[in-house]
């Protein structure tokens, strides 16, 4: 018996949005913490640390996100850990986000003029104080627009969790489609829901970029 697409199916899709949002939030928070470490590593004065961070970014930016999710999912089995799709998606997206945010923020840290670094160390600030009070506060302003822009990429990336079997918005779309056989309608609605999540962020990123664009550069 083929079900028809009714308001219940729409509610099911709508309620799946919360899982897309939860997954995005976790990956963003985890990715932000790890990404800050990667960015600091990437700009570190110690060469091995710099190389390690560069390698990490290269591997995660040079391989498909889907493969990264598969490796986390199946890699856990290798280590003898029972990993459910939810944890695998969260961990995989976190690792991926940390590499991308790390690379974005590296650029922002390096955009702080050299003179600021020199002035701070001339004032006797060591690395932690220099970063905390001088460099990072200035880098944050530059970092805001591309970070919001990356958030869009992250939300779209969570759709791949559907392939390893986590029921977020895209997987919910597949489930409803399997029951109703109205792919065009179902996936249009799914796409529209993603659009509603992502478009405001894209507009915000563009506005922030226009606002924080350094005048006269």
């Amino acid at each position, binding site marked *: 018996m083929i079900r028809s697409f009714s308001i219940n199916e729409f509610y099911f899709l709508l309620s799946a949005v919360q899982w897309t949002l939860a997954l995005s939030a976790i990956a963003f928070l985890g990715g932000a913490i790890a990404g800050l470490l990667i960015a600091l590593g990437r700009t570190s004065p110690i060469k091995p640390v710099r190389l390690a961070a560069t390698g990490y970014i290269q591997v995660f930016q040079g391989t498909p996100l889907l493969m990264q999710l*598969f490796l986390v999912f199946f890699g856990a089995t290798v280590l003898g850990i029972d990993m459910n799709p939810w944890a695998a998606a969260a961990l995989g997206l976190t690792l991926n986000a940390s590499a991308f945010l790390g690379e974005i923020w590296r650029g922002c840290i390096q955009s702080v003029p050299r003179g600021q670094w020199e002035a701070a160390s001339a004032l006797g600030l060591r690395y932690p104080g220099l970063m905390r009070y001088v460099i990072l506060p200035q880098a944050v302003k530059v970092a805001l627009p591309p970070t919001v822009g990356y958030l869009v990429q992250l939300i779209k990336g969570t759709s791949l969790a559907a392939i390893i079997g986590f029921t977020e918005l895209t997987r919910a779309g597949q489930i409803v489609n399997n029951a109703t056989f109205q792919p065009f309608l179902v996936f249009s609605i799914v796409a529209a829901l993603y659009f509603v999540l992502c478009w405001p962020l894209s507009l915000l990123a563009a506005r922030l970029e226009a606002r924080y664009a350094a005048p006269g550069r």
Partner: protein
Amino acid sequence: MNYSFQFDAVIASWDYLLTGAWLTIRLSLGAMVLGLIVAILCALGKTSGPKPVRWLINAYIEVIRNTPFLVQIFLIFFGLPSMGLMLSPDMAALIAMVVNVGAYATEIIRAGIESIQKGQVEAGLALGLRPLQVFRYVILKPALRTVYPALTSQFILLMLSSSVVSAISADELTSVANNIQSQTFRSFEIYIVVTAMYLVMAMMFSGLFAAIHRLVFTYDLERR
């Protein structure tokens, strides 16, 4: 950790993996070329078309850039047949990739076109070139030269995201990996090898593009 790695299954299907990788490369190159044509037309429309055209192109770009690639693939592969247009998985994958990369490349090329100074266009017209000639020689060529690096990284992103088309079982690298996985159950071994293959392909292409950039796209004055 008492897991014993067994790579025999991967080694046994080495040629199958290479076929998949080759299709990934062909799909990505084909989608990039077609996507560039779409993008040049859209960029032309967006910079100098009438208002409704500009509005349509903007809608296309915003819709594609703000929805996941996977959902776009599903819409094309499952949605179009319900409107009477049957597609093979490979064909649907190609169309989805063209539509997707076309939107991103439009924005890149538009940025390149807008970087051309107005005086250049006026000079071209003053020299008696027709508008299309001005577009081709005065605007498009220097614009593409400017945005070449951005386009090449877009290509790498396209190639990596092409793994997503395995969701509709196209025959590219990730689908091949899925097939081997479902026959041998050596999941981790296969996916780690395939991940490495993607990494090598990404590095190969960025090296190749950098070489092309030095040889073709550098002005003589810049060449060392």
